[in-house]
Each structure stands twice: as structure tokens, then as C-alpha cells.
């Protein structure tokens, strides 16, 4: 059964990536032409990243994941260093007021993408290390929360609100699965929510986004512009879709049509069949990941597998939620599909780990049977 789950998972990923490349070709042509005088600019870059990502994924899937357990702390510290570097003016690359990128020659890299996976590895490692002591306040809550908190704060000050939220939710979910007392988690979730609300109130821009989300018509020309135009894309797509490449919303009605809002253009061009299939594929991805994680004998593998499954699926769900107007706007990409190099590479690395986990398990089970 494990190989089946793994094959389905790989199949889903391949479909999503294929769809992503096709849709990127369609959506990014307009922006590419305007910004770089090359309609294929984004497509070319993404294909280079895809090659890198595939390579990374294959390599990672061949490396025994248990090494990660030993490397958890150095990896976490490494990602901390990168996250700090990003904040240093001159080193970090600022786009639209956020320092999220490190420039590595021709390529831009987002350390927060790396932090996602390193945090997961360290949390899974720690929680599997303490095992039954997870009930303990200090070991089960304070230490993992402290490690998680450093990452969150560093990402939060970039600022990257969406990624912070995502890592917070997934991190606490891992602690939850790892056995931390519900009461503790509940209180820290409560405290987190307070911080969350404070963060919203503190930043007028975030507050406006929330207000605009609740009252989009009034802010149609400003904060709710993207939101409304994303919804319009689905409406125009109707029951059939306008056809591949025929989207009008991507022509400057919907900014970020090739990144965070690419899903809206899928809905507009390819119709409900494609948009619902995408949701179904992520659901399938979640179920496969869940199957792999729950059918492993190693607690570390299980927590890590669950973490990876959750972080990819949740990110997709939040993105789709934003694009369909169900959640307030955040800057989260749609995994496998949106344009973005480091996101694609790190997502594929995570998929590689997940595959490796499933393969180890098959091997150990096979050995046992033998």
C-alpha cells in the first residue's frame, strides 16, 4: 500500500507542476512583456528553478531522512543566520517594502522558505526526542515554543505575515500531534491570537486589509482591488472557462496574476473543472501524506511527514482561501503552481523527504517480512 500512496503522491505533484508551468506561461506573458520585454521571462526562470527543484527532490529522496535528525540543530541555526542576514540592509533584497530575499548571483532566494523546513525538522526531532515527556511543561511546551518563536519573530519582522502564520499553525500542530498538553497549547494559541490581533492593530496596512476584506465593495479601488478581481475571474470563468490563454483578468486587472493569484486565472481560463481538480489534488496530496506519515514506525518520521504534509496543504488552502475571497489577503504562494524559485525548490525538497520516509518504511517493513 505504501508504494501506491507514494506513486499517487508523485503523480499529484507532477500534475500540479505541469499545470503550474502551463498556467505560468499563460499568466506571466503580459507582465514579462511589460517589465522585461520578454513574454517568456518568468517561464524561463521558473523552468530553471524547476530543474533545480527536481534535482534537489531526487537527491533528497535518496538520502536517509534520519540524517536530518542529527542535522536538525545546525540546520535551524543556519536558517536563523540567513533570516538575520536578510534583515541587514544591503544584504537582503527589498521588494515592495519587505526584505525577504537574498541575492545569490542571478537567483533570488527566500530564507523563510528554508526556515519552514528546518523548523519542521527541528520540531519533529525535538518532539520525537522527548516522547512521553511531552506532557512536561518545560520540555513539551517551552522549548519547542522557544525554537518556533525565534523563527516566527525573524520572519515576522521581514515582514512576512503569511509565512509567520503558516509556520506558527503547522508548528503548533506538530506539538499537538507530538503530545503536548492541550491545555498548554490552548493557552499559547490564545496568547498567539492576542499577538496576532495586536500585530493587525499595530499595522494600519494589515488593518485596512482586514476591513477591506470585510467590506470589499467600499475599497474596490484600493485594498480590495485584488480580492474583487480574483472573484471576478472565477465569475467570468463561469461553468466552462474562457479558454487557455484567453484570460482578461491577467491583463492588469489582477496584479500578481502569475504569483499569489494564479489560481484565479486557472478558474477563469480553464473553468470549474480545473479549479476544483486543483483543490481535489491538494486533498489527495494531504491524504497520501497522511497515509505515509501514519504508516511509519518512526515517531520522528511521522511528525516530520505530518509537518510536511500540513505545511504544503495548509499553504495551498490558505492561498485558495484568499483567492476565492474566503480569507483576508496574505502573501502566500500556491505550492507547485505559483511563480517563485525558492518556494518551488523547498517544496520539492519537502516532497523528496516525504518520499524518502515512505521508501524507508517500505524497506524496513519489507525487511521485517523477509
Amino acid at each position, binding site marked *: 500500500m505504501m508504494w501506491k500512496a507514494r506513486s499517487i503522491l508523485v503523480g499529484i505533484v507532477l500534475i500540479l507542476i505541469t499545470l503550474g508551468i502551463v498556467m505560468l506561461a499563460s499568466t506571466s506573458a503580459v507582465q514579462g512583456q511589460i517589465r522585461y520585454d520578454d513574454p517568456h521571462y518568468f517561464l524561463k526562470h521558473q523552468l530553471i528553478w524547476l530543474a533545480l527543484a527536481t534535482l534537489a527532490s531526487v537527491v533528497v529522496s535518496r538520502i536517509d531522512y534520519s540524517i536530518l535528525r542529527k542535522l536538525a540543530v545546525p540546520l535551524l541555526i543556519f536558517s536563523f543566520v540567513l533570516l538575520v542576514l536578510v534583515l541587514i540592509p544591503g544584504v537582503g533584497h527589498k521588494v515592495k517594502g519587505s526584505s525577504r530575499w537574498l541575492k545569490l548571483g542571478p537567483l533570488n532566494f527566500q530564507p523563510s522558505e528554508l526556515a519552514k523546513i528546518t523548523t519542521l525538522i527541528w520540531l519533529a526531532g525535538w518532539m520525537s526526542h522527548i516522547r512521553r515527556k511531552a506532557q512536561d511543561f518545560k520540555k513539551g511546551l517551552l522549548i519547542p515554543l522557544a525554537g518556533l518563536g525565534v523563527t516566527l519573530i525573524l520572519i515576522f519582522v521581514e515582514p512576512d505575515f503569511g509565512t509567520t502564520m503558516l509556520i506558527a499553525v503547522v508548528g503548533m500542530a506538530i506539538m*499537538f500531534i507530538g503530545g503536548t498538553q492541550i491545555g498548554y497549547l490552548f493557552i499559547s494559541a490564545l496568547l498567539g491570537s492576542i499577538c496576532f490581533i495586536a500585530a493587525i492593530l499595530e499595522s494600519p496596512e494589515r488593518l485596512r486589509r482586514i476591513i477591506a476584506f470585510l467590506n470589499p465593495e467600499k475599497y474596490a479601488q484600493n485594498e480590495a482591488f485584488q480580492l474583487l478581481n480574483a472573484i471576478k475571474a472565477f465569475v*467570468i470563468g463561469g461553468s466552462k472557462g474562457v479558454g487557455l490563454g484567453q484570460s482578461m483578468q491577467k491583463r492588469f486587472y489582477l496584479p500578481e496574476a502569475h504569483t499569489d493569484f494564479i489560481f484565479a486565472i486557472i*478558474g477563469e481560463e480553464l473553468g470549474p473543472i480545473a479549479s476544483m481538480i486543483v483543490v481535489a489534488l491538494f*486533498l489527495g496530496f494531504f491524504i497520501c501524506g497522511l497515509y505515509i506519515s501514519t504508516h511509519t514506525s518512526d515517531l520522528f518520521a511521522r511528525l516530520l511527514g505530518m509537518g510536511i504534509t500540513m505545511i504544503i496543504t495548509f499553504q495551498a488552502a490558505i492561498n485558495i482561501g484568499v483567492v476565492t475571497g474566503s480569507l483576508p489577503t496574505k502573501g502566500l504562494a500556491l505550492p507547485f503552481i505559483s511563480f517563485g524559485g525558492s518556494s518551488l525548490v523547498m517544496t520539492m525538497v519537502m516532497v523528496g523527504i516525504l518520499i524518502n520516509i515512505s521508501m524507508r518504511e517500505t524497506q524496513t517493513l519489507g525487511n521485517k517480512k523477509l
Partner: protein
Amino acid sequence: MIDLGHRWRIWVIASIAITALSGLGVRLAFLHFGSSHDALRTRILKSRHSEEEILVGRGRILDRNGNILALDLPVKDIFADPKVIIDKGHLQFVVSHLARLLNLNGKILFDRLNRPGKRFVYVKRFVKNDLADEIARLQLTGIHFEDHTARHYPQGALMCHAIGFSNWEGVGSAGIEQKMNRYLKGRSGLRVSERDGRRRELYSRRTLEIKGQTGSDIYLTLDQNIQFMVEEALDRAMETHQPKGAWAIVQRVRTGEILAMVSRPCYDLNGFRNTSAEVRRNRSISYVYEPGSTFKAIVIASALNEGVARSDQLIDCEHGRWIYQRRPLRDFHPYGSLSVADVLKKSSNIGAAKIALSLGKRRLENYIRAFGFGKPNRLNLPGEEAGIFHRYSSWSAISSTRIAMGHEIAVTALQMLNAVCAIANDGFLMRPIVIEKVVDVHGRTVFDPDPEVIARPIRRDTAKEMRYLMHRITERGGTGTRACIDGYDVAGKTGTAQKPVPGGYSDTANIASFVGFAPVENPEIGIIVVVDEPQPLHTGGRVSAPVFKEIAEEVLRYLDVPPGEVKPYLQFVNYENRNTDQKNRAY
């Protein structure tokens, strides 16, 4: 090995995730299939829909020789994006440069651009291309250009009333520009397409494109050179006599073509925005005035044609004062008996009145109407007046006597000239025309009016006789001696009409006119000159006849008209005055 203690926790998370994703699926279905979305869909599609008029150039206006009088020039509209300028803090800089180059008031421009919320403000429209290019080279923040065409009139004020102008939107608003707008404007094209989020039209989304057609060229019958001569002559008259206004028309006798049409005061067509309606008025076709003695020519021609008078028939001119129907009628110079020919030559009111009475009301009206009075000439120019001429049934007992001397009837200069040209043209009344032809952009003639006879009020022999009678006016003892020119014989009639004021006629304001044609034997051109309130007060013979002379002299030579001598046609009649009045002046 496998720690199953917390398995339920995994299921909690799994169910949350699955529920959330399923919820998104439902949301998607709602967005795609929502029944209330049809209205929204229509609204979105409508907001993108674009129907654009493709503007085409306006046709040109040319004179009969192909000299360009009006054409479209490429210009640029300059507009600003105040938001960008202010955001970058360049306002002061931009304003100072623009004000200097465009010669605008810096303070006013500053106030106009100092509106941070605005995204679009015109700085100046219709800026010549080279000046716009100079500004473009400065690369000022937030200053943009848009190509446009502007109407340009290379001759400035020349022929201004006839040509007219087209307004900022390219719609003809006066003169030929207005009347022939239908031909000039061309046919604008249509482009149906869609706009992207930046409101730009998308080439790939065009569903319909109809090409426009540039407007047709209008060739006028007017001649730029003749027009210039006439304008010069009138300008000199304006200088000398300081009148309220003056106007003149030159018409080709045989065809009715208008060769020149001048009205004073005038204006530069390129600056029509700063003029008043009074200045823009084409007086030669829209100013209705009482013609005065010039009208005697019409009345006497009618009487001769009808046979109620002969040119050598003697009329008792009552020594300057005649009571008819208990109302006195006076002559400026008293005469005893005058022949009909001399009534015209000396311009006797009493003589003309008696001739009119002999014709009778009904015939008088018929003749006058046959000469084209009381109705407009359907000229291809806006603002043409019909004049004022009542039916004989509403005339009073003395109306005939007053009409005979050109009162109780009001005419336009064009009507008067056209009627006199009919006398010159063997009695054929031609339709005056200003359009020679209209040629479309492919070179096809789309409108080509032929000379048209609209009436024949008098016979050929009457017309011939009248030509000589009117020629005598310019001979010694006539009222129009100042109209004489060397080498050509001219014919004409003077007119000095007091202007009507409430309760009677003004003693201090008159309209002095002269209408005539030349050469007498074979008339080529008819000319009318009207001067409104010459200062000091003077007669048509003094004021307008010299202008006629100046014009006729130049125009006849310009047209290469062969000089001809008057044949001794009327020598057998003794026209010599029985009451010789040595003065040339007459009423």
C-alpha cells in the same frame, strides 16, 4: 514500537484539513456557478468593452486656383499627471519650465497643477509639434503628450467670413466650415475592442474595425488674389471713412460665381476664440439694409421691360417737391422734367416714384420678386438673410413711391448685386455660388454645382438698354462719376440710404453703396460695395464708387478682360438734360 497514544490527534488535524479543503471546493462551485453572477458578468464585460471612434482628418478648403485656405496640422495636446508630479516634489520645477516655454501664467498653471488627487489636467492644447518636441526633450515628470490635429488657416484673416472656422472638437462652426461640414469632416472609423486593466485597447481583442475616410476638399469659386484686392480696397475705405462696417462682393456675371466676398470688421481665423459675434458676422450676406437709390435701377428696368415707360420719356420732377397722397416727397436736387434715363442718372426720387406708380403695385412686386428679392439665395454659406419685402396687398398708398427709391424694402448686398448682375447678364438671374467643386480623398468630384438660371425678370433688349442707362451714371453729370476707370466702360448705380431709426430716418447715419458691373458691352464682373455709416456723412457716389473703381480696375486687369468701347447705341435719343444741374452730386 509505534506510539499510538496520540493517533486521535492526527485525526483531529486531518478532519480539519479535509473539511477546510472541501469548504473551498464548495466556495469555488458557488463562484463559478452562482446564479446571481450573470448581472456581475455582464457588468464586467461591459466595463471592458471599448467602442472607439477613429478620428480622421478634416478636408481642406482651397480657392478656385488651388491655394490652400484651411487645412489640418498635426499638433500635440500637453497634459499633466499632478499626482505623480507632486509625489516626486517636482511641481515648482515643472511649472516654471512649462510657463516659460508655453508662455503661460506661472501662478495660474501652478494652481491648476497643484491638485494632488488629480491624475489628468490639460496644460495646453493644440501646441505646435516643434514646441511640443522641445518640451518633450526636457523629460519633465508627469507631463504627457497626445497627438492631435488642429485646424490651421494659412492666410489668417483673408476670406475669414467666407471660410469660417471649425471649433476645438473639429466641428465647423461658421462659414464654409460649417455649411460644408458634411463633406469636410469625412467619415470617422469605428473600432470595437476590449480594454485591459490599464484601460489600454487590446489589439488581439478587436472584434470590429471600420476604417475612416478623410474629409473631402472644398474648392471655392472665390479667388484668393481678387479677395486680397477687394480686402485692401475696403481696408483703405475703412481707414478713410471710419465707418461702422463695410462689405463688398465680386461676382462673375455670366455664371453667378462669387469671386470675392469681404466683410469688415474681420478677424484672424486662427484666433477665432477671442472674437465677438459682431466681428464674425458676414455682413455681405447677413446685413439687411434699405438699398436706397441703387434700387431705382431695378424699378426702372421693370418699367422699361413692361413698356410702361421709355427711356426718353419725360417725367415731371416737380422741381424737387411733390405731394402724393398728402405726403411730401423730395429730391436732393430739384429738377423740372427729366427723361427716364436721366431720372436714373440724376437719381431723382420723384421721377422714380412716378415710374413705379405707372407700373402698379402688383406688377412692381412681381418684378422685384423675379429679381430675387425677399428670399435667400440658398448660398452655401450660413447666416444668409432673406431681406424684408412685403406682399403688395399689405402695402400702403405710398409704398410704391418709397420702394422706388429703395425704402420700405430691405435687402442683402448679395441680393442687390445678383439682381444688378441679372441686368448685366441679358436678364438672366443666376444663382450665386461659392462652391466650385468638392473633391473627395480619392480624387473623385462628389459635388459640382453648375451655373443655374433661377429667373429671367427682363428681356434681353431691356437688359441691354439698362446697361447703357447705368453706364450713363458714370458719365459727366451722373452720380457715379467716381466709379469710372481708364480703359473700361463701367455701369452702376449709387445709393445713399438714411438708416431707419425709431420714428423715422436718421439724419446722421446712412448706408452708402455702389453696385455696378463692367465692361458695359460684355459684362464680366459685378461688384457691390456697401459702407455702413461713413464719417463724415457722405453719399454712395462719394464713398463707395471710388472703392468700386479701385476694385474693378484691379480685378478686370487681373482677369485679363479685354477693354471694349460702348457702342453708340443710344445716340439717337437726346438725353441731354433740360434742367442741367452742373453738380455731380445727387441723391
